């Protein structure tokens, strides 16, 4: 069985304040696992906030219920993982390929940034929930 050394879980309406709450969760998570190096903390935090922001900005409700954001982050030996979910949401639309836009574009860099920051990104859809699973293998100091 995989040993979970520390974890945080957030679920709430997909609204702006959720981004600050998730960021505060991550900051407190790193205090529990000081052996995770600064680079891993920095890159993983950035990837999780990018994914959560993408949901807050773009997820559309599938029905009458509002979209909720869920972020479950776990630290395992040599592995950081986050499940970033949009509950009660339509399937995502539009290109999911990560390509950088023109240099004067003011948006469209999020997916490319996420892919550059983590080891793997996978997408799952089940029971009206879109989930991005971000994994980063811890680097050595």
């Amino acid at each position, binding site marked *: 069985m995989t040993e979970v050394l520390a974890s945080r879980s957030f679920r709430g309406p997909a609204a*702006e*304040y959720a*981004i*600050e709450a998730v*960021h505060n969760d991550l900051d407190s998570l790193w205090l529990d696992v000081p052996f995770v190096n*600064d680079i891993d903390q*920095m*890159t993983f*935090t*950035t990837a999780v*906030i*990018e994914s959560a*922001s993408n949901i*807050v*900005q773009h997820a559309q409700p599938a029905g009458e219920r509002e979209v909720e954001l869920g972020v479950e982050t776990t630290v395992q030996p040599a592995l950081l993982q986050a499940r970033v979910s949009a509950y009660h949401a339509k399937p995502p639309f539009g290109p999911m390929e990560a390509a*950088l836009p023109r*240099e*004067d*574009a*003011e*948006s469209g*860099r*999020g997916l*490319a*940034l996420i892919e*550059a*920051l983590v080891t793997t990104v996978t997408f799952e859809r089940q029971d009206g929930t879109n989930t991005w699973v971000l994994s980063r293998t811890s680097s050595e100091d």
Partner: protein
Amino acid sequence: MEFSYEVKDTYAEVKADGRLNMVSAPKLREFVTDVIAGGSNRIVVNLEHTAFMDSSGLGALIGCLKAARQAGGDLRIAAVQPQVNMVLKLTSMDKVLTAYPTAGEAFSND
């Protein structure tokens, strides 16, 4: 995030302290637009106390850069911290948003 600005001899220095994310990015854009409207078109954004920036924050800086250039000036960034530097490099925007060690050096050779 907290914003402040100070008009210097040859430029206006904007400080953006905190997290530059999807919440604060539109506020930075509005703040800098107001500084430009006030008559300053050479802007230095001092990122010394910007601990975090995501792609929304980066988009806001690009929008501010375009606004400064449209006003006949330029926008430069200073005192970039490691996380912000990482985002600039991974998106290749370090070539577009010129970073200087300190705000005072940003326009010192112009």
